[in-house]
């Protein structure tokens, strides 16, 4: 018997993406495994964030863009006509660079998604969901007596963890993270990284980061984007100990020209 790989969460094939005439992604093919952390690294403008945003069709709102190729989520083409974007974005949630809680209470921030999606009714159900999500991100003990406080009064690190709680309250399968720690101090960064480690038991995580050391610390698999192409992809320990390509070696060693 050969080695059995689980079906990938995402299977992307020959993905091209254009902003008008500019081709931002060139023939990207990748399998993203479930319940792993996949890190995407590369210099600014290499296409890694564009790629991330293709995974839940966040680029759809940008006029003049065009996409070719296939993005399959558990075998289903997410760019097919019948796909419901609300359902897609519930399955594939996103955390952004700057913590962006709504200017509402802690409680309402976490309850927002489940309420909008009709997953919960009434205060009691909401309480259960809010508590579970805050526990999952390690904020419950800190915030349980501050649920009615304005979310914007929290520290930036806690705001970012709150945003992660807001995503997981909707029970997604995948969490996309675009530079989730770039606005955070080192302690808050390590807290979020440790949180990612606990979350991968239940979720598939894809993280874009400028911080190579962060990619090395947190991820199971790492991919390097270069001028719109995914030039190397593999187990993180291998990428950071013996990358195949000279270009990867130069980039991770800080010797990129």
């Amino acid at each position, binding site marked *: 018997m050969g080695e059995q790989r689980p079906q990938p969460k995402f299977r992307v094939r020959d993905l091209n993406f254009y902003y008008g005439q500019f081709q931002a992604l060139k023939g990207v093919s990748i399998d993203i495994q479930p319940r792993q952390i996949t890190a995407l690294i590369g210099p600014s403008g290499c296409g890694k964030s564009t790629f991330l945003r293709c995974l839940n069709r966040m680029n759809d709102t940008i006029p003049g863009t065009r996409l070719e190729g296939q993005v399959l989520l558990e075998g289903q083409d997410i760019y097919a006509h019948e796909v419901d974007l609300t359902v897609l974005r519930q399955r594939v949630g996103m955390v952004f660079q700057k913590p962006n809680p709504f200017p509402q209470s802690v409680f309402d921030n976490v309850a927002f998604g489940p309420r909008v999606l009709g997953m919960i009714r009434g205060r009691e159900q909401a309480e259960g969901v809010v508590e579970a999500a805050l526990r999952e991100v390690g904020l419950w003990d800190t915030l349980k007596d501050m649920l009615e406080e304005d979310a914007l009064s929290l520290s930036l690190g806690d705001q970012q963890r709150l945003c992660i709680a807001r995503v997981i309250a909707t029970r997604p399968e995948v969490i996309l993270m675009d530079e989730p720690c770039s606005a955070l101090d080192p*302690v808050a960064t*390590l*807290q979020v990284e*440790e949180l990612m*480690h606990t979350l991968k038991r239940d979720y598939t995580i894809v993280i874009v980061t400028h911080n190579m050391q962060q990619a090395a*610390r947190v991820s199971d698999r790492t991919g390097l984007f270069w001028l719109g192409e995914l030039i190397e992809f593999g187990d*993180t*320990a291998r990428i*950071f*100990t013996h990358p195949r390509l000279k270009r990867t070696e130069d980039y991770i060693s800080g010797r990129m020209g």
Partner: protein
Amino acid sequence: MGTSLRAAFDRELEAIGQDTLRLQGMVDRAIERAVESLKQRDRALAGEVIAGDQEVNDLRFKIEEDCLALIATQQPTATDLRAVIAIMNVAVEMERMADHAAGIAKTVLRMGDQPLLKPLIDIPKMAELGRQMLRASVEALLARDADRARAVAARDDEMDELYFAVFDELVEIMAHKPDTVERATYLLWCAHNLERIGDRVTNIAERAVFITTGAMKELNIKRDEGG
């Protein structure tokens, strides 16, 4: 959430520590079985010890690779960095110790059916001492216990005394009965292998001290090295 912010590093280092303990157990058994094969003149057992060396080599390389990956991915500093580097060194020391055990087993094969020159007394004592020292040094390393490591290193003097006792005795026999030279030399090789095991334990103890203090220092200057 873990109590340490470096929970990922701690988890991975813990796993490497477990492998280090496993390697120590394998080397311990190799020494025990090598000397047993000498005592019993059991060539099949000697063959097993020699064959088992491959497994030791494999685990040593796994530990080295895991340490490399840990350095590359977790960027340890200070004590953490010293711990990873020390474990890499210790894995190499232990692998060489298993080579010494295999050296004894190879000597057993060379001896063929010739009877032992004399009953074995000090050689099994050296083996027992070496195994105790090895276990204690690895425990001191993983517990970051510099005092215990220094105490282990000090016991290498006992090992040297045993070795020189065996050496003097065998030279005496050879001087009086030249026809025993071959058989005496075989035993001398075995004793020498065990003596080298003691030296390598001292190196492990030095690494344990290095982790906690950062000092790279020889813990035991040997009398035959003019110390």
